């Protein structure tokens, strides 16, 4: 299984501290859930109660935005960089 990195944006870490992690995961969903174990509270900031990525959170795998928020089954490759940021600014 590939080794990947998961990084949460500083704006997210303002609420829950969770440093970047290097971990082993076959799919995007596995990587996120493995990363959540380091700071369980952060899961509800990224995923809603149905397990989907929140609509104003953006997940990137390398430079590619994950468009389908309801499907975290995409396979990962070695050294993929997963970045979780907030997707929208507001007033």
């Amino acid at each position, binding site marked *: 299984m590939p080794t990947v990195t998961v990084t949460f944006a500083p704006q*997210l870490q303002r*609420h829950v501290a969770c440093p970047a992690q290097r971990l082993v995961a076959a799919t995007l969903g596995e990587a996120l859930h493995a990363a959540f174990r380091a700071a369980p509270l952060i899961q*509800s*900031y990224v995923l809603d*109660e*149905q397990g989907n990525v929140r609509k104003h*959170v953006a997940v990137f795998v390398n430079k590619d935005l994950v468009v389908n928020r309801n499907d975290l089954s995409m396979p990962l490759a070695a050294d993929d960089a997963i970045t979780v940021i907030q997707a929208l600014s507001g007033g």
Partner: protein
Amino acid sequence: MPTPTLLIASRKGLFTANRSSAGAWGITSHHFHGEPVTQVLADPRDGAWYAALRLGHYGVKMRKSTDRGATWTEIPAPAFPKKPEHGAWADDATPWTVELVWSLAAVSAAQPGALWAGCMPAGMFRSNDGGASWNLCESFWRDERRKAWMGGGNDYPGLHSISVDPRDDRRATIAISCGGVWRTKDFGASWQLIGNGLDAQYMPTELAADPNVQDVHSLSVCAAQPEVMWVQHHAGVYRSTDGGENFTRLTAPMQGDFGFVIVADPVNPLRAWVAPALSDMYRYAVDGAMCVARTDDGGNTWQLFRNGLPQSHAYHLVYRHGLALAPTSGDARMLAMASTTGGAWVSEDAGEHWVALDAALPPVAAVGWAAGG
């Protein structure tokens, strides 16, 4: 009795305000800087403060303080269970995701730690442990009649008013925009649709009298006589004297009877306050001049109070939770009011005179009171 502390839930955080020794009201603290707070509750049983946040990116969060706001901890937020993939609710158009916590209520002194939370979408949640965990009232959430609700101006129906019967804590009356008035007699195990007499004039004729589609903006109950209930509806002000089974439309406070909030006097069943607004097409103070209307005869007549409120180009709107009575052991006379355009005022004579807080606040979602510390 020390002067109570005013809690202001705004789009940019939670503020407290207190009265100085000179008698002026001013902001005394700011919490959750920059974060939308949708509801606040000071639990009269143990003094705990609860704040519901709606983080635009990260969803609904709850915070709790047991030291009057000096420190806060994150507690779980109400959350729906997994949406079924099969069966009657698999194609539910309403997402099973809490968008915001719109109402909070302490149940009773006999059930310490028991809380109700009403949300948008209109789920009803109960905690038995001071917010450490929440359970959805499944029987209500899976009632087929929910499919006829709509959100009105919001994306989804929302549960904004919760009133626990002071005589029997198994009973509570709630109201939903746009889903009418409901009651439980068994601590949420089962629910009855009540609210006959409400009239949704803006709906198709066949539905106008249907209790299940009513856009109740706010429901408030007289604590001393809980059979007396008041409703500010999308189209009119109403009063019930039979525990919400039936409502009668009242005389309009001014040339219109639109608004979002109504507050019942806790002792006098004939007294209530509203913050009138100019019709659903405009939704701001009539003629740009703010007033508060109070009835002392059960809604037959209303007095309009403007002293201390802006009267020229003041396009404030007081939303569902923007008017609140301070707790008192005597006659209820202290009220706070705040608008979606950041104005805030306090009255200490039952709404007849108002003083403005010296602050230009963010949009205010709710005001509440905590006993003086």
